[in-house]
């Protein structure tokens, strides 16, 4: 069987990739449904019972649509931009631990594709590439609204990434490791989820995550009411769908990272408390998905509730609030780590 060692990662990749793509399409449905309920509507109801087949209909529609490239667009960049947006969002899942180890057919199978010892760094660097997709899309469209949007996006993403990365460093200092799996295990050994150790980091990271994924109240780059759709104004068909998928995939990445770093990943709640041990009967990956779902719901909930920030206010929140808070948090964490 050792000669078949390459097979396992391949199967894992296939499963994760497909699961993520299905999750992304159903995330769209979830968002439409939840927002509809928040707004006293029904949401999609026609395709399948309660619209459960709506994502499939949407996908078919987008695939069959005419793919338009504006005559004066930069064709090469115009084509590559959506790909640059989607691919990093998908390959970030490579290091996300959906669970610990499971026994399948008598073999010990890890429920993650790779346990890289610099997993967190990998996620930060990979998701940074996704920004180029947005910037290039705005530039390549050769159109004014997308150009404005891509300028907004680049400024926004750069400023919020600083705060996010600093918060990740706080967690790294607390856990003493960069590996995603080891961070979850550290929470098991320390007998506490890191949300109780680093609550400030969670808040800053989540706000930064909203900005990184271009979600309300930071959805300036695609502000329909101001910039008629922002960077994807000129896109149609499947290329538009790629941006769409990338946004939702990024939301899932942020939820998964937050779950892993702060809520014990696949661990059941309070795994060290004796009388709660029965929670361990539920498989770890289910705990992981439930926790992820909670954060995805929060994303949608925020979208249904809040208005949008203005460009300069967004920068002010980023530089004058989040980054100082992040710095202070990192400083305090480091001091406590050294002296305690």
């Amino acid at each position, binding site marked *: 069987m050792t000669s078949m060692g390459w097979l396992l990662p391949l199967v894992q990749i296939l499963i994760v990739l497909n699961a993520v793509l299905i999750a992304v399409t159903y995330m769209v449905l979830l968002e439409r449904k939840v927002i509809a309920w928040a707004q006293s509507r029904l949401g999609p109801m026609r395709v399948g019972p309660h619209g459960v087949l709506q994502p499939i209909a949407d996908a078919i529609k987008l695939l069959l649509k005419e793919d338009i490239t504006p005559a004066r667009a930069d064709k090469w960049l115009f084509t590559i931009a959506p790909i640059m947006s989607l691919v990093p969002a998908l390959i970030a899942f490579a290091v996300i631990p959906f669970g610990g180890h499971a026994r399948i057919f008598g073999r010990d199978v890890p429920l993650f594709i790779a346990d890289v010892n610099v997993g967190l760094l990998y996620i930060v660097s990979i998701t940074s590439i996704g920004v180029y997709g947005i910037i290039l899309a705005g530039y390549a469209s050769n159109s004014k609204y997308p150009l*404005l949007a891509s*300028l907004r996006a680049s400024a926004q993403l750069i400023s919020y990434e600083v705060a996010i990365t600093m918060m990740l460093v706080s967690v790294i200092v607390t856990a003493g490791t960069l590996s995603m799996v080891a961070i979850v295990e550290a929470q098991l050994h320390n007998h506490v989820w890191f949300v109780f150790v680093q609550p400030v980091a969670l808040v800053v990271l989540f706000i930064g995550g909203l900005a990184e994924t271009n979600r*309300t109240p930071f959805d300036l780059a695609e*502000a*329909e009411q*101001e910039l*008629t759709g922002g960077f994807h104004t000129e896109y149609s068909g499947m290329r538009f769908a790629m941006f769409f998928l990338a946004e939702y995939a990024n939301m899932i990445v942020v939820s998964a990272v937050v779950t892993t770093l702060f809520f014990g990943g696949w661990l059941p709640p309070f795994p060290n408390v004796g009388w709660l041990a029965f929670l361990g009967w539920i498989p770890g990956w289910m705990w992981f998905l439930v926790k992820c779902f909670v954060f995805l719901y929060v994303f949608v909930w925020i979208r249904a509730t*809040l*208005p*949008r920030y203005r460009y300069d206010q967004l920068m002010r929140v980023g530089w004058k609030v989040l980054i100082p808070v992040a710095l202070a948090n990192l400083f305090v964490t480091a001091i406590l780590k050294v002296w305690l």
Partner: protein
Amino acid sequence: MSLFDTDELVINMGPQHPSTHGVLRVVLRLDGERVVGADVVIGYLHRGIEKLSEHRDWQQIVMLTDRMDYVSAATSNLGYCETVEKLMQIEVPRRARYIRTILSELQRIASHNLWLGTHAMDIGAMTVFLYNFRERELILDLFEEFCGARLTYSSMRIGGLPLDIPSGWARKVSAFCDLFETKIPEYEDLLTHNRIWKERTRNIGVISGADAIAIGLTGPPLRGSGVPRDVRKDEPYAAYDEFDFDVPIGSAGDIYDRYLVRLEEFRQSLRIIRQAIAGLPEGPVVGKVPRLIKPPAGETYHAIESPKGELGFFIVSDGRSNVPYRFRVRPPSFCNLQALPRLIKGHLVADVVAMIGSIDIVLGEVDR
């Protein structure tokens, strides 16, 4: 020679743009995100209603007034009918005046609903939009029951009303008032104390009371700047002199104050409707109107307070033909729109849509 060329970016906002509330075109000159200058281009919805009216029978013009401010047809109807009544010195029965007041205030709520929904949507709060349309729907139902139409009502006639209110209608209006009172806090919960909403609207698009008067602003944009001018109070028409209500005014003259003024107008409208329903007199709904309407030679101007501001009609009759000799409208949307270039100069692109929303224009009325 500087190292980098800097150039203004000229951008056409509209006439096809999601936030220009129809077919308004604003040519923005941008320095980065900052607006250096703005030209407002109108006329995309011009249908020549004023000229058309000079070729229509006096009663037929009511139908044309529907199509000016199409989100508040009843107040346009009222303004026109009262102007002709003033010209012909027709006495309108008290019951008709009461019902006209109820209709105009219902219309004011519906119009403000539409305004608040779209304005909040422009700033990114999408849920408020649907909450407002939920309540507006109920008002449209009331109008449908009264006159059969949901948008272009033609709900008034010279001398009174086309028909009396259906039985049970007054009770339904009261029920709506009770329901709507519980819904206003829902809008307020989402916006009034929301930090983002405040940051987006406070000290944005400020206009002082004196400037507002100089430009000719009327309605909530004028009252938001602290000028207590309301035609309903100052020159009462319909039955407004018989009711007790307040004219809310703002102080800062920014988008936030205009928002607060309109929200308070929701409550004042409910107050007026309740008084009107409680004291609704019996009697006919049409006054003594000649079969052939032919006003005596002369001219008159009469204004009412439409949801957008002072809606005035100037009508000249030559006393011979059965059409007006000259028909001229003073549309509040058009006059308020004049303030836009001055308001947006120096602000950011995102503020432009907030300001278009805050002055509450309807392009059907701007262009006529």
